[in-house]
């Protein structure tokens, strides 16, 4: 249904309602596309849409301008209903140069809106990305709604009396774009203007330039009748509450702070910068007023070593990293497992092996987290499903670490770490209890005595008179902890360490199933594949398929009801962004012939590819046939 509205210029304007829109902004990494995307996301969130975002940026900070390597993108899905991913294919694509066009055009939906800064389509820039002819002129973009706009010229013209250099003025073109799309999607201008004023509070010149560029873009769209119609996405039915848009890394940081506050202990982060985990360090470094110490260590090993040292002293010790860093922390993790101190290691996974694709996502550290230590060194492993879910997972990781006196590995990945979604703020006093109780009684204290229910040993911290004791990596006697090479004791300790981790299963809520309780297939996922799997299974259910979705948050130990659940379906399908690591665990644990859907492209699954592949598996077709 199309309605007529009135624009600010008084002209009649056609407004077409839409249920959802996927928009992607792409340009050179210096073009400010991340900022444009984030600001447009804020506009959508405040308008009440459900949202999910996916920033996609290169490994290079400023790759040579105009090259494919340097293209940075930000995708937003906003809708009037619940969304689970940042969207398969954009229906609107904004590109700032030929490289961004080349890198992104294959993703744009048929008849999608393509907004292009024509000023950057110079012969030189076209040559850089090997366009033989100008795609804006040769008809190759005919299947899209192409809008050619002199964005750079129009931006600098709008600012020409401000005394800015060409470079400074050109930089404001991202706000011109934001103005264009804000008009296109009927967004009020006030929110962005307020935001600009707040962001550039101390630089009034820049604030004015960006405000003008933004309004110039908005007014340009309005007065030139550039777009035949504009669109409106109504607010989504969202559970009542207070929300903020949050990335996974920010949510992880907040989860740690909340847990430490709840435990009444200081938080100590030992960390070495690594993509894509550094933002957790940046975030936590701001919260000193909440007893948060962030220690930028000399290397990954020092990161975890310092966290173990802090835990020995009674702090909530955590370390954050990505795959290569987890490799380096392995030995120290073994020590923490042996001395049974609480610790959380967050691994924000990225594509490997080696340096791999540092800014691209993958789920390929699962088996490393499970088994990547010498000796028998079992550790609990928890994985976050979405950006907002990182909060509870980080919180839970601390809760379990403290309750069971064990290191815990928290897995997230580049997709949810940088992606964002609305997060319903929790009430702190409603969060699960975290009680820290240090040993103080010298008469009864034994370093390795054990809690009956959890098998946790007591936490006795330096400064406690009479409890002086020595911890160490050498095998110790159960009870006293004294060095022991007694064969029976070693076997006992090996079993106790394993049993302790297994007992964490008593913390895990029953598996939730979306769909039939039994049927043709169940799709099981872990980590960041939650969104696309959930959306894909919903779609298949709408098509009448007998298929369910269940998600695993606790990977070690696995939920105790998982084995029985899987038996209720003819097929178990496990999509993963790896070669089948959870599948290997499921097969090994439950002797189930699970079938994998595996993607190793550094990109999350799209809903449509999962729909196609799950259908194929359910129909007994070979996956290769639907690649």
């Amino acid at each position, binding site marked *: 249904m199309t309605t007529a509205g009135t624009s600010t210029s008084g002209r009649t304007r056609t407004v077409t309602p839409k249920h959802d829109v996927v928009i992607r902004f792409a340009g050179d990494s210096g073009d400010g596309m991340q900022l444009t995307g984030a600001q447009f996301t*804020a506009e959508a*969130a*405040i308008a*009440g849409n459900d949202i999910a975002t996916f920033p996609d940026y290169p490994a290079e900070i400023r790759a040579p301008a105009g090259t494919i390597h340097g293209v940075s993108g930000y995708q937003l899905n906003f809708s009037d209903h619940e969304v689970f991913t940042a969207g398969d294919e954009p229906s609107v694509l904004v590109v700032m140069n030929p490289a961004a066009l080349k890198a992104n055009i294959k993703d744009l939906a048929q008849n999608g809106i393509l907004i292009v800064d024509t000023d950057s389509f110079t012969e030189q820039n076209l040559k850089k990305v090997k366009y033989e002819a100008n795609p804006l002129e040769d008809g190759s973009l005919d299947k899209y709604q192409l809008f050619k706009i002199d964005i750079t010229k129009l931006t600098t013209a709008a600012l020409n009396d401000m005394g800015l250099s060409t470079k400074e003025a050109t930089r404001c073109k991202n706000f011109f774009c934001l103005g264009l799309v804000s008009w296109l999607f009927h967004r009020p201008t006030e929110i962005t203007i307020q935001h600009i004023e707040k962001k550039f509070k101390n630089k009034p010149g820049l604030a004015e330039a960006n405000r003008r560029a933004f309004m110039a873009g908005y007014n340009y769209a309005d007065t030139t009748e550039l777009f035949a119609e504009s669109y409106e996405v109504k607010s989504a039915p*969202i*559970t*009542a*509450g*207070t*929300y*903020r*848009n*949050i990335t996974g890394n920010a949510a992880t940081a*907040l989860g740690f*702070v*909340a847990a430490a*506050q*709840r435990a009444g202990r*200081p938080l*100590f982060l*030992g960390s070495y910068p690594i993509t894509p985990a550094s933002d957790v360090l940046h975030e936590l470094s701001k*919260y*000193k*007023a*909440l*007893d948060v*110490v962030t*220690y930028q260590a*000399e290397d990954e*090993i*020092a990161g975890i*070593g*310092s966290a*173990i*040292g*802090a*835990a*020995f*002293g*009674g*702090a909530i*010790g955590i370390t954050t990293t990505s795959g290569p860093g987890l490799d380096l922390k392995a*030995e*120290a993790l073994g020590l923490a497992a042996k001395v049974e101190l609480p610790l959380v290691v967050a691994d924000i996974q990225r594509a490997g092996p080696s340096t791999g694709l540092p800014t691209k996502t993958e789920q390929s550290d699962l088996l490393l987290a499970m088994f990547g230590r010498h000796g028998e060194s079992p550790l609990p492993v928890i994985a976050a499903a979405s950006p907002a879910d990182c909060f509870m997972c980080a919180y839970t990781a601390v809760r379990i670490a403290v309750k069971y006196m064990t290191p815990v590995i928290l897995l997230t990945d580049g997709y949810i770490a940088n992606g964002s979604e609305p997060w319903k*703020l929790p009430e*702190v006093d409603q969060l699960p209890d975290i009680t820290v109780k240090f040993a103080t009684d010298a008469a009864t204290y034994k370093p390795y005595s054990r809690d009956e229910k959890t098998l946790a040993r007591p936490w006795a911290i*330096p*400064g*406690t*008179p*009479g409890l*002086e*004791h*020595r*911890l*160490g*990596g*050498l095998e110790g006697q159960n009870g006293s902890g*004294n*060095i022991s090479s007694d064969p029976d004791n070693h076997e006992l300790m090996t079993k106790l360490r394993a049993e302790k981790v297994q007992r964490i299963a008593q913390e895990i809520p029953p598996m939730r199933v979306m769909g039939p309780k039994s049927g043709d297939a169940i799709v099981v996922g872990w980590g960041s594949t939650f969104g696309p799997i959930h959306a894909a299974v919903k779609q298949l259910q709408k098509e009448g398929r007998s298929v369910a979705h269940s998600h695993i948050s606790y990977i070690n130990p696995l939920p105790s009801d998982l084995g029985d659940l899987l038996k209720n379906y003819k097929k178990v399908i496990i999509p993963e962004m790896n070669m089948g690591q959870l599948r290997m665990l499921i097969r090994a644990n439950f002797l189930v012939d699970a079938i994998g859907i595996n993607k190793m492209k550094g990109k999350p699954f799209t809903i449509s590819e999962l729909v196609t592949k799950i259908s194929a598996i359910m129909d007994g077709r070979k996956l290769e046939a639907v690649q």
Partner: protein
Amino acid sequence: MTTEATAAVKLTRKDFVTDQDVRWCPGCGDYAILSQVQRVLPELGVPREKIVFISGIGCSSRFPYYINTYGFHTIHGRAPTLASGLKISRPDLCVWIATGDGDGLSIGGNHLIHILRRNLNVQILLFNNRIYGLTKGQYSPTSEEGKITKSTPYGSPDHPFNPIGIALGAGATFVARSIDVENQHMPGVLLRAAQHKGASFVEVFQNCNIFNDGAFDYTTDKENKLDRQLRLENGKPMVFGKNNDKGIRMNSQMQAEVIEFKDGLSEKDCLIHDETNPAIAYMLSQMVAPKFPTPMGVFFAIQKTTYEEVATEQINTAKKTRPLTIEQLLKSGDVWTVK
């Protein structure tokens, strides 16, 4: 060490002895070091429960098991990392690190230099026996060039590290040296190290009588040690020798040289030791036997802010100037309400 002295009861050496059997080889220099440390600890006036010994891996790193304080025998080379986390989050504790030439200078070299440059208020005792003992006799980063060991049957091709030089280069604020057999000398150095506010680095020459016996005999030889050691005393001229008839002076090339007190040369021509002068400290670090007497004592001691002081101050300031509750933190940023 600036930990509050609140010990109500006067402690003795015995209070620091554990019930664990000491398992070093009979005759190992580590016994002497352990005994000296246990002698010095009661002097500090720090309650036993506030003292923590942290070690890595190696013979020296068994140390914490034998001292009745809190202790942590960690992993190879990483003791400084655990000590850093502990000291930053618990500045009230008196933290010691026991390490060796392999643990501290080979696998853990990186952590050693960083804890020194950050100037955490800890004591680092580096037992230098110039050999790998626990793995049974390979050459270490302080083994002399050409050394024949199990892993270098044709002689080591490595140039050795100079531990004092490394500590100075890393920006250490307290650098000293002593010897396992000098039970009159070591306690003074240990006490100074413990009293220093900031990272104290003490190299202890330690004899491994199994794999590198006699490594320091030249320096410790009873007959000649006064001619072969230079005892450093702040503000005093650098004089040595059985008869106090030799000294160190700077020549016109600004290099140290040994002088004998004859032909009009005397103590007055000697360099005066100044613990706050980095040039002197560096010069001393380069004085190697047999050309020079081996300097013993405190090479360098200056004051700088410690890491944990600044870290604690930042937290206290943040709490005062920008107080924050967890509820406020969660609600920060662009928040909206859905009804």
